[in-house]
């Protein structure tokens, strides 16, 4: 041992002392331990035990007794879907397998109550409490009373039974009136009373109607500073913000995607009696582009579906037509032979289940109309614009212009961790009715024909060289050299045990953490972009009338990403079935021999 090397450097540096002193001061001046600081927890006890044993986190189904319209709107929303989403569960498991230190990060937003009450992240969904399965449920927002900002989903939900106060954007005058006349409204304000159990107080929480309230879950970075949601970033720099338009104005207003005021109506209906008939009504469908791909028996939330368990529902083959008239007739006539699970052996049950499925499909269809409205209200498509008069035997150059008419954020925006897609599909039809050229087509799996297409990799289809795709990409730096596209915003080239801890650098001034970044290709608010195409001359070989058909296509997740996380075939099918075509239209034009 060389003792000499201990020398003067063994003395702590002044900065180190300063740092330690600051830390000590901070911890002396403030409570730091959850159990000690939380007056809802008992010292020395597992804080989970109490909440597991209590009913301190009421389910949306309890709120539905008085707030039926809001419940109905919410029940098919993306918030209600957050905990049911099969992609969420597949993705969450995959990223935990690959980067275990991410732990409950995803669940904290998607299943806020579940995480709060300490249900393990891997717990089967059907073993979780009802309120946990509700994802972003009523109390996820209306039991929050601190003005969180970039909290990355870490919002405290105030515990308390159904009678405890809730927080809203207006105040509690309506509740006050109902409580004062509880007999006539037939409500109960204590556990012992009979009637619809209600909260006894409504407290105004100003942030709830401000855009800043959405930030904690919609501007999200995971440790190292990897941004997964950047809607706030985009909104902060937007004309909408400058004009005072809030997130709620477009996503909870009267018209999907447009700030055109709010509907009015009573917030609550108690046995046919209401208060405040003309109060502002915020639509809890939360208009947006997302859509569900879960089994239609388990989503949208439907109280009637609770006659069966989630596991029962997942064995119900809704795609084969179980419970439909045609199907059941064929079964009766022994034209088809089906081995039903025990729970679905009774045709009456199957028919009843089918009714629920159809009711849920109706809701999903309505959601589809709303999201199409959101997308079309927020964008515009013009074209084709020909570079020169189309001529026989000459290449055809043209472009379309996509405009983001939405003042609030980029097109597309949203949960970029899911890598949502908007791309242009354009097809040229020759005078004989043949599709002679196309861009934005899908491979046999449903992916665009780009570098992620399995068919392109296998050489069975051509790469789509002219693809117009607005999807944001995650990039990681190679072991040496440049970056490459990666399905997860996690670098595996540095080492294969990536830890997601607070970064060693001040990453907020570096644009991105080391060796991981996001590359936006979206169109900024009120911006536009040309999608340029060129059809080779040899395909313009016939004189006559040609057609150009175009559409923008919106899909919540790419299929290659779904395969990466182990999605089922049914999930892939639903993802493709429910995507929407935005601004679809066709034109015709003449192609003549050049004089």
């Amino acid at each position, binding site marked *: 041992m060389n003792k000499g090397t201990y020398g003067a450097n063994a003395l702590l540096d002044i900065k180190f002392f300063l740092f330690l002193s600051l830390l000590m001061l901070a911890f002396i001046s403030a409570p730091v331990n959850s159990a000690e600081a939380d007056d809802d927890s008992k010292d020395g006890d597992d804080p989970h035990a109490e909440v597991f044993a209590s009913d301190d986190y009421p389910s949306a189904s309890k709120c539905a007794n008085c707030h039926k319209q809001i419940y109905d709107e919410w029940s098919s929303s993306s918030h209600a879907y957050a905990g049911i989403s099969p992609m969420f569960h597949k993705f969450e498991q995959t990223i935990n397998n690959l980067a275990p230190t991410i732990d409950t990060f995803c669940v904290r937003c998607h299943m806020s109550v579940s995480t709060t009450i300490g249900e393990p992240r891997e717990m089967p969904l059907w073993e979780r409490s009802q309120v946990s399965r509700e994802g972003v449920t009523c109390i996820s927002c209306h039991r929050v009373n601190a003005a969180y900002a970039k909290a990355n989903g870490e919002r405290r939900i105030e515990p308390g039974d159904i009678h405890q106060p809730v927080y809203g954007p207006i105040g509690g005058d309506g509740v006050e009136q109902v409580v004062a006349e509880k007999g006539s409204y037939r409500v109960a304000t204590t556990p012992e009373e009979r009637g619809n159990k209600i909260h006894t107080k409504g407290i105004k929480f100003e942030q709830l109607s401000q855009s800043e309230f959405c930030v904690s879950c919609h501007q999200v970075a995971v440790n190292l500073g990897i941004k997964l949601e950047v809607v706030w970033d985009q909104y902060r720099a937007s004309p909408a913000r400058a004009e005072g338009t809030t997130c709620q104005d477009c996503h909870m207003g009267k018209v999907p995607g447009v700030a055109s005021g709010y509907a009015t109506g009573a917030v609550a209906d108690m046995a046919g009696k209401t208060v405040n008939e003309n109060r502002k009504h915020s639509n809890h469908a939360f208009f947006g582009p997302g859509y569900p791909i879960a089994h239609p028996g388990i989503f949208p939330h439907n109280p009637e579906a609770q006659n069966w368990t989630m596991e029962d529902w997942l064995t119900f083959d809704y795609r084969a037509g179980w419970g439909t008239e045609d199907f059941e007739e064929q079964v009766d006539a022994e034209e088809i032979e089906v081995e039903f699970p025990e729970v679905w052996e009774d045709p009456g049950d199957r028919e009843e289940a089918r009714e629920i499925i159809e009711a849920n499909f109706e809701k999903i269809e309505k959601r589809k109309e709303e999201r199409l409205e959101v997308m079309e209200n927020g964008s515009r498509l013009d074209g084709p614009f020909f570079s020169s008069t189309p001529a026989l035997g000459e290449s055809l150059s043209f472009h379309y212009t996509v405009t983001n008419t939405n003042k609030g954020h980029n097109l597309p925006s949203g949960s970029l961790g899911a890598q949502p897609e908007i791309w242009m599909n354009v097809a040229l039809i020759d005078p004989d009715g043949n599709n002679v050229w196309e861009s934005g087509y899908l491979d046999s799996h*449903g992916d665009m024909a780009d570098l992620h297409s399995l068919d392109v990799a296998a050489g069975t289809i051509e790469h789509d060289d002219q693809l117009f795709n607005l999807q944001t990409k995650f990039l990681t730096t190679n072991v040496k*050299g440049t970056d490459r596209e990666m399905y997860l915003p996690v670098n595996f080239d540095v080492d294969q045990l990536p830890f997601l801890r607070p970064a060693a650098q001040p990453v907020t001034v570096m644009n991105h953490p080391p060796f991981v970044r996001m590359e936006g290709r979206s169109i900024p608010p009120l911006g536009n972009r040309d999608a340029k195409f060129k059809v080779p001359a040899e395909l313009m070989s016939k004189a006559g009338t040609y057609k150009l058909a175009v559409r923008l296509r919106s899909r919540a997740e790419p299929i290659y990403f779904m395969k990466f996380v182990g999605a089922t075939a049914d999930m892939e099918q639903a993802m493709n079935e429910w995507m929407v075509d935005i601004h679809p239209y066709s034109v015709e*034009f003449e192609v003549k021999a050049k004089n």
Partner: protein
Amino acid sequence: MDKSMKQKRTVPVTFAAGVSMAACFFVPALAAEEAEHHDPVMSEQAEMIEHDSDLFRSDPSYEDKSYDHEAQLQIYGGKSAVETTRPMLELGRHIYEDGPLQRSTSAWGEKNPVLHQFAIYGDWRTAYGYNDNGAAELGQLATRLNLDIDYKFTGTERLHALWRPLDQNGRFSRCELNGGNDDEGCVVEFNGRLSSLFFEGDLGAIVSGLSDEYTSWDLPFSFGLMPLLFQNGVWVEDAFTGFAFSIPAMNSPALDISNMDITFFAGFDKVSSGGVREINGAVADDDVNLFGVTAFIEANRGYWEMGYAYTDGQGRLDDQSYHNVSIAHTRRFGNTLSNSVRVISNFGQDRRGAVQTADGFLILVENSFITSRPLTYVPYVNFFAGFDRPQSLARDAGAGGVLKNTGINFETDGLTGFPKLDDSANNTWGGAIGVEYLFSLEQQIVVEFATVQVMEDLADRVARDDQYALGVRYQRPLSVSWIFRADAIAAHRKDDDDLYGVRMELRKKF
């Protein structure tokens, strides 16, 4: 040209344009379009007809797929617990743990809630290496400990420090076992100094909290001894004492920029520039100031990084002051190539007759090929050409040379003195061609050949003559906290001693 056609030119994004983008951001946006349905504008030759979605190729068919209820059950019931590693110490709110969150306090204002989270984490690396760096041959067991100390108290504000107690001044706690000076034996290089200590926050959040009014702006900033890393470490990889702030998340409809950040930074101590040296040739990391700006721009289906800085030598070092400009563009081309092109240029140094230490320019062309396994099978070929004495803006002594990101044969291990090729880009050109395979993202093998070719006279460069190297790296986790890694290099240097090295490392992350 069709008269009705809308015209839009893509403006070449140059450095000058980049610097002016902050101004562009504040230009009023294009007139708002009414969110209402409209008929599309188009060329006069085109005429709208009834739309038929059958004109497109069909979407995938699932007719042959039957409903698999077992697979559906697995979605929600087949999840599994994953063993993970907790930090060495956690106080307050634990990182990503479940359970109820404590009530926040309002010490920094109601609109900037305080929630304490303190953690100590990092890694401990121990390696045996037998290396011949040309000058000496040495087998040694060396170790280093990196302790990250992080105290986060609001959503955006935190203090962070890095303490490396087992190494100092490039020397690691070690036992020299073979070769070298046998008298050294085992040495503990205890170090009480912090390698970094900085505050990071958002002025917008702080002002919102203190004034109880939301600001319309965000302004991330940092000060202290802060490590910065720009352009994957090629332009900056250094910790210096100073400050930095960003104007984040801008966009430009006019320039079709999806996202843009501009960061301003300054350093006043521990600025390590290879272009500013003491008389003995050592990098002078005090008496050097730094003032710079860098922009990150996502546009053109790729991204741009550009920066300018002035390195200001003080007093006796005044004649080594110089300007540093860098621009880089990264994007993918079809399903073939991922590419970055970087240029660093140094100019403006006036040595008054002495030898220049920062001049000329460096071009880096980094490529990787997109394969049928684009995530895990990555062939790459990176080229460089350095003319005169190009310098990164700032490089920590342990960060290696400006070519560190060109190939594994240009990188030492920061522990055992693993040899590398000349990484100065001082009147040399060359590159690295290699292949990386990541299996199923759970292990890694890299094989690479690299070369350095010399230009100009011997007196004007570091490398004596041409160099060639073959390197290999293998790495895989052994558990949820331990990683094994092995590296080897064999290099031939014309007119100089050859290089050999082999090392094995165990690393524990916590």
